[in-house]
């Protein structure tokens, strides 16, 4: 079905599309989407995820600002693309500046990010229709002790276009925890994160995307690291009707260090596509793109990792790794490694494996008295644990991953029992 991007833009755009005095850039982005269309399967990088067709089949309306009151002041709530946490409840700490992306008083450092040109379709669509969001700045050398926690909630059948801006100045340190909670019903999220780390800054970013069977989740992180900056991102994705999570990182200085650890834990007929790209623009930087997937039911997991090492970016150290464990014969994993190396003196490695649970290991544990169910669960937990140790917010990430795994194993069990139940 040929998608018509016109449908994404109503005749009368809501008032929030006129915020920030940014009409010119919104129009420009809108024109780009109309001209170039949305990504479809014939495009490189979108072979496994046909978001254009999914959006055409399941249109979502632009929402009005929801009326619910913010309840939990510990988390910043963004619902249907609107910031629900009142400014007075936003976290406060020395060196930390948080500005809502709305109203006339947007600070110039945040406004600069909003003027950045978009080149890809989905971020352009986001920019054309950005509702609200948040901009975070951490001053030079400030180390923010508590993680900043976000919840991106969605009501049914609405399209949300929030934006998150993060600026860490020299030597600043911040931890972000982002949750996309489970829910019922359709809808579309198109989230864009713009992240900039100055020299020596460090960001830990944990993203938890919980299962939404009928939802279309698209999110992108665009990260720039200056010299000696370090970004560690963990993604735990349970998948959705269609989930596409992009992570692009540009290493612009020596000793910049980027690590993405993606974990796909999807069952039923959910889909999760994680597309990571890292650009070694400067020599002497390190990157590690790593994924683990546990897939059950008819779930589809995708990990596309692309590493580009520019000419003269010598002494780059780039690794990619992907391993998947399939719990069901109908689950699928696609792993697509790409390495484009234009420098001579580099260290690069990649590896990929897809298989079922290791029978030898299962027997070993059962021989020590552990039931088959417990042994399987321990092995899968080990598969995850082995992946996560170097990550930020380790305890929280592991707890979230365990919970996701538990849900996945439960759905596997009920699917199997349905198959064996002649009445079903």
């Amino acid at each position, binding site marked *: 079905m040929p998608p018509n991007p016109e449908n994404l833009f109503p005749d009368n755009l809501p008032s929030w599309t006129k915020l920030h005095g940014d009409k010119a850039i919104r129009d420009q982005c809108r024109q780009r989407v109309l001209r170039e269309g949305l990504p479809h399967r014939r495009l490189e990088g979108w072979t496994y995820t046909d978001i254009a067709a999914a959006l055409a089949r399941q249109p979502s309306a632009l929402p009005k600002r929801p009326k619910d009151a913010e309840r939990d002041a510990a988390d910043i709530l963004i619902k249907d693309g609107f910031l629900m946490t009142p400014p007075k409840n936003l976290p406060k700490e020395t060196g930390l500046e948080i500005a809502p992306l709305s109203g006339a008083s947007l600070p110039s450092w945040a406004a600069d990010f909003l003027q950045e040109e978009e080149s890809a379709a989905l971020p352009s669509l986001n920019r054309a229709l950005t509702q609200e969001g948040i901009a975070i700045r951490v001053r030079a050398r400030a180390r923010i002790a508590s993680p900043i926690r976000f919840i991106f909630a969605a009501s049914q059948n609405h399209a949300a276009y929030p934006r998150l801006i993060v600026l860490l100045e020299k030597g600043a340190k911040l931890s972000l925890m982002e949750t996309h909670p489970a829910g019922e019903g359709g809808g579309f999220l198109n989230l864009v994160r713009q992240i900039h780390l100055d020299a020596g800054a460090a960001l830990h970013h944990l993203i938890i995307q919980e299962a939404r069977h009928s939802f279309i989740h698209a999110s992108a992180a665009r990260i720039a690291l200056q010299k000696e900056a370090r970004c560690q991102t963990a993604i735990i994705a349970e998948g959705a009707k269609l989930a596409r999570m992009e992570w692009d990182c540009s290493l612009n200085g020596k000793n910049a260090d980027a690590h993405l650890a993606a974990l796909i834990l999807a069952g039923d007929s959910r889909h999760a596509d994680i597309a990571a790209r890292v650009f070694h623009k400067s020599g002497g930087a390190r990157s590690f793109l790593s994924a683990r997937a546990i897939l059950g039911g008819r779930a589809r997991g995708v990990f596309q990792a692309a590493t580009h090492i520019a000419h003269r970016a010598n002494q780059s150290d780039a690794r990619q790794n992907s391993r998947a464990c399939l719990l069901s014969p109908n689950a699928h994993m696609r792993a697509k490694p790409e390495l484009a190396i234009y420098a001579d003196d580099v260290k690069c490695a990649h590896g990929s494996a897809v298989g079922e649970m290791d029978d030898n290991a299962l*027997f*070993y544990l059962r*021989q*020590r008295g*552990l039931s088959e169910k417990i042994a399987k669960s*321990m092995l899968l937990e080990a598969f995850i644990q082995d992946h996560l140790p170097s990550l930020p917010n380790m305890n929280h990430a592991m707890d979230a991953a365990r919970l996701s795994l538990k849900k996945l194993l439960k759905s596997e069990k009920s699917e199997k029992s349905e198959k064996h139940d002649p009445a079903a």
Partner: protein
Amino acid sequence: MTTPLLTLDNLHVAVEGKPILNGLHLAINDGEIHALMGPNGSGKSTLAFALAGREGYEPRKGEMRFQKRDLSALAPEERARLGLFLGFQQPVDIPGLGVMPFLRAALNAKRQARGEEEISPADFLRLCRGAAERLGISEELLRRNVNDGFSGGEKKRLEILQMTILKPRLAILDEIDSGLDIDALKLLGHAVNALREDGMAALLITHYRRLLEHLALDKVHLLRDGKIARRGGAELAEIVEREGYAA
């Protein structure tokens, strides 16, 4: 006459359709140490897997009785909880699973099956550290993941540690001596002897007499073409080592 702890009667096992064990008879009583020797491919490891309940190693004919129970009717974990322990020839690496949590889960599974309470973390730590110290296993090894990055000798030591902590009724040790240095062999001998005093029996699968020297053997069986070709006392191991399996 008391019933043996383990009785194998006319045991036939085929793996992937190929007959490996062809009418094996064996009886082991409580507290006895038996050695099973035999050339490569004679069926020693097949017997170990059949006893432990590995899929694909089910008997086609004959009987396996352990503590008067028909082993064929039991899942691997049920056999383990009854007290049947297999020390693996090639222990499996499990990255991501810590040695201590694994050992504690295994011990608790066994205790639970006997209607006992779970061991407290403090008591388990004491038990584990004490046993590790006696076997020359470092704290550092205990903090690592199961067999992950272990040398051959370290893997075998971890098998012995598991046996020591789980205190089985029957330990089947499949070439546990390969990869062990002389000191470790001595420690293994001590560990088996100590458990034997509590009534543990053992079936040692080996090619060499060097481990057997540390133990008071009750019987030696020579396996050939899936059958016990010869039985004897400790002297049989000496003959085999001197003259080879053709003896």
